[in-house]
C-alpha cells in the first residue's frame, strides 16, 4: 500500500480544525435542540430573548460548521496534492505497472481518519463544556434547559463528516492522479505544459524574484497564511468584545478556538513552505547565501498577505458582531451596546506583529538545518 496510517496521522491540522468545528457545533446544536423543546413562554419580552438565543445557537453552529468545514476540505486537498507531488515517483511506478487512478485513489481513504479523530475529540470536548455553556446562556424567565443526548447529533457530527471526507479525499485524489505518467516519473520536459513567456516579464534581483515565485508557486499557502492571521485578528478581538456583551464564557471559547486555529494554520503553512523550498535553500546555501537572505526569499513575500488577513479579520469581526447584535437582539428591549474597540485593536495588532515575527524567526532556524548535501545527493 502506498499510503500508510502514519501518513493519515500527519493531517493533524485537519483534525484540529474538525475538533474546533465539532466542539462548537456539539454544544450549540445540543443547546438549540434542548431549548427548542421548551414551550409555553407567553411573555413577549422573554419570548424575544428565547428567539434570540435560538438564532444565536443556529448562526454560531452554521458559521463554525460551514466555514471551518470548508477550510478542512481545502486543507485536505492541499495535503493530498502535497502527498502526490512528494510521492510522484512511487505513484508513477505503480501506474506504470498497471494500477489505475481509481485503484490508487482508494488508498486515500486514510486521510478521512484524521477527520474522525478530530470529530470524536470535538464531540467529547463539546459534551464536557456543555454544562458550563448551558449555565452561561441561562436567562431569567426561561425555564432551566436540561442537557439531553441527541443521537442525530452523534451521527451528524461524528460519523457523517469522516464518511464525507473519505469520499472527498477519494474523489480529489482520483482527479489529482490524472497526470501524465512521464510527469509523475520525472521525465518533465516533454510532458509539462509550456506556458509562453509572460509579456509582463520584469527584470528583478534574484532575491526579489525568488520571493515572488515562492508565492506564485504555492498559492494555497498564501490563503492559509492569510486565514491564520484572519482567525487571530477576528477571534481575539471578538473574544474580548464578548465580555462587553455579557457573554464572557462564549468569549473564552471564541478566543481559544481562534488561537488554536491561527497557530495550527500558521504552523502547517510555514512547515509546508520550508519543505517545498528545501532544495532551493540548499542550493542558495551552497552558493554562499546567508541565513537572513534565504529566510527573506522564503518568508518575506507572505507578510503583506498576513497583514491583509489581519485587516479582513478586524472588519469581519466588527461587521459580524454588529450584525448579530442588530439581528438577534432586534426584538429585545435591552440591546447590548457594541462599539469598535480601538484600544483592543491596537493591542491585538501589536501582539500579532510580535507573534508573527517570533514564528518566522523560529522557523528560519529550521532553514539553517537544511543540509547543503541535499543538492549533492
Amino acid at each position, binding site marked *: 500500500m502506498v499510503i500508510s496510517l502514519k501518513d493519515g496521522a500527519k493531517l493533524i491540522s485537519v483534525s484540529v480544525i474538525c475538533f474546533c468545528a465539532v466542539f462548537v457545533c456539539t454544544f450549540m446544536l445540543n443547546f438549540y435542540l434542548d431549548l427548542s423543546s421548551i414551550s409555553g413562554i407567553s411573555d413577549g419580552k422573554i419570548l424575544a430573548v428565547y428567539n434570540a438565543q435560538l438564532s444565536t445557537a443556529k448562526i454560531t453552529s452554521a458559521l463554525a460548521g460551514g466555514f471551518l468545514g470548508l477550510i478542512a476540505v481545502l486543507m485536505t486537498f492541499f495535503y493530498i496534492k502535497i502527498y502526490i507531488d512528494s510521492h510522484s515517483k512511487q505513484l508513477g511506478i505503480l501506474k506504470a505497472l498497471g494500477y489505475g487512478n481509481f485503484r490508487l485513489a482508494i488508498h486515500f481513504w486514510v486521510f478521512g481518519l484524521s477527520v474522525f479523530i478530530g470529530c470524536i475529540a470535538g464531540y467529547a470536548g463539546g459534551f464536557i463544556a456543555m454544562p458550563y455553556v448551558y449555565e452561561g446562556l441561562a436567562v431569567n424567565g426561561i425555564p432551566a434547559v436540561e442537557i439531553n443526548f441527541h443521537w442525530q447529533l452523534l451521527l451528524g457530527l461524528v460519523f457523517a463528516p469522516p464518511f464525507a471526507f473519505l469520499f472527498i479525499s477519494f474523489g480529489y485524489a482520483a482527479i489529482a492522479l490524472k497526470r501524465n505518467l512521464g510527469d509523475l516519473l520525472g521525465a*518533465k*520536459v516533454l510532458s*509539462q505544459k*509550456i506556458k509562453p*513567456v*509572460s509579456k509582463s*516579464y520584469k*527584470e*528583478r*534581483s*534574484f*532575491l526579489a*524574484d*525568488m520571493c515572488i*515565485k*515562492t508565492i*506564485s*508557486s504555492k498559492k494555497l499557502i498564501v490563503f492559509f497564511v492569510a486565514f491564520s492571521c484572519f482567525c487571530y485578528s477576528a477571534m481575539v478581538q471578538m473574544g474580548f468584545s464578548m465580555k462587553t456583551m455579557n457573554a464572557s464564557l462564549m468569549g473564552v471559547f471564541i478566543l481559544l478556538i481562534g488561537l488554536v486555529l491561527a497557530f495550527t494554520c500558521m504552523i502547517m503553512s510555514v512547515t509546508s513552505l520550508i519543505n517545498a523550498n528545501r*532544495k*532551493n535553500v540548499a*542550493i*542558495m*546555501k*551552497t*552558493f*554562499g*547565501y*546567508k541565513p537572513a537572505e534565504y529566510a527573506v526569499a522564503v518568508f518575506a513575500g507572505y507578510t503583506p498577505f498576513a497583514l491583509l488577513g489581519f485587516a479582513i479579520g478586524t472588519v469581519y469581526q466588527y461587521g459580524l458582531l454588529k450584525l448579530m447584535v442588530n439581528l438577534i437582539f432586534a426584538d429585545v428591549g435591552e440591546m447590548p451596546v457594541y462599539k469598535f474597540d480601538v484600544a483592543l485593536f491596537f493591542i491585538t495588532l501589536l501582539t500579532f506583529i510580535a507573534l508573527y515575527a517570533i514564528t518566522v524567526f523560529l522557523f528560519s532556524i529550521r532553514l539553517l538545518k537544511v543540509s*547543503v*548535501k541535499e*543538492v*549533492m545527493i
Partner: protein
Amino acid sequence: MLEAKNIFKSFNNGNVRVLKDVCLDIAEGDFTVILGASGSGKSTLMSIISGLERPDSGTVTYNGIQLTALKDKELTDFRRKYVGFIFQQYYLLPHLSVENNVRLGADLAGNRNYKNIIKSVGLEDKCKNRPFELSGGEQQRVCIARALAKQPKILFLDEPTGALDEQTGRSVLDYIVKLKNLEGFTMVMVTHNQNIAEMADTVVKMNSGGITEVYKNSSIKSAYEIGW
C-alpha cells in the same frame, strides 16, 4: 593554493570509511580531474575541499585560509567569495527564469554584467524561459553561466556531462575549458570518465577512499579529440 592534508571521512558512525588519509595539492589556474569509480570517495573529497562538508580529521587550506577551522558562517562567506559549483543534475530553481537563475550567482558577486555571460553560453534568446523549457545541454549551460556569473576563483564540477549525450557533453566541456583559459580560474572536476581526464592538466586517481596516482598530462586534448 588548495591543499588537503591527511583527510579522513567516514559515515554511519564510523562504520563506512569513505576517505582514508587523503593528501592533495591543487595549483592556482590548474585544471584538475579527480577520477574514480562510483564509491571511490571522489565526490566526498570534492565536498570537503570545496567547503561543503567537514572532514573527521585533517586540514584543508586555501591560500592560507584553513577551511577546516572555519565556523559555518565563515565557510558560507568562503563559498560566497571564492567558489562556484556545477552539478550533474543542474539544480536550477524551477520557477525562476534563466536570467534569474544566473542572477542567483551574479547578485552575490555584485556582477551586473551577467547578461554577457548568458550571451556567451548562447542562451541570450532564452533569458525569460524557465529551466523545464530547455534541453539538458541548455540547462547545463545555465548552470555554467550561474557558476561563472559569481566570478569564482575556483570552480568545482561534479560529473558535469554525466546527464548529457555525447555531442552536447563535448560542446559543454569544450565551452567550460575555453572559459577557464580565458578567465584563468582554477577548476576541479570529479568524473568517472577516463577520457575526460585527457583534457586536464593534472589527474588524481582515486580508489577505495584513497589516492592511488597523481600525474600531469604531457599533452592536453580538446573535448573533440578525446574518446567518449
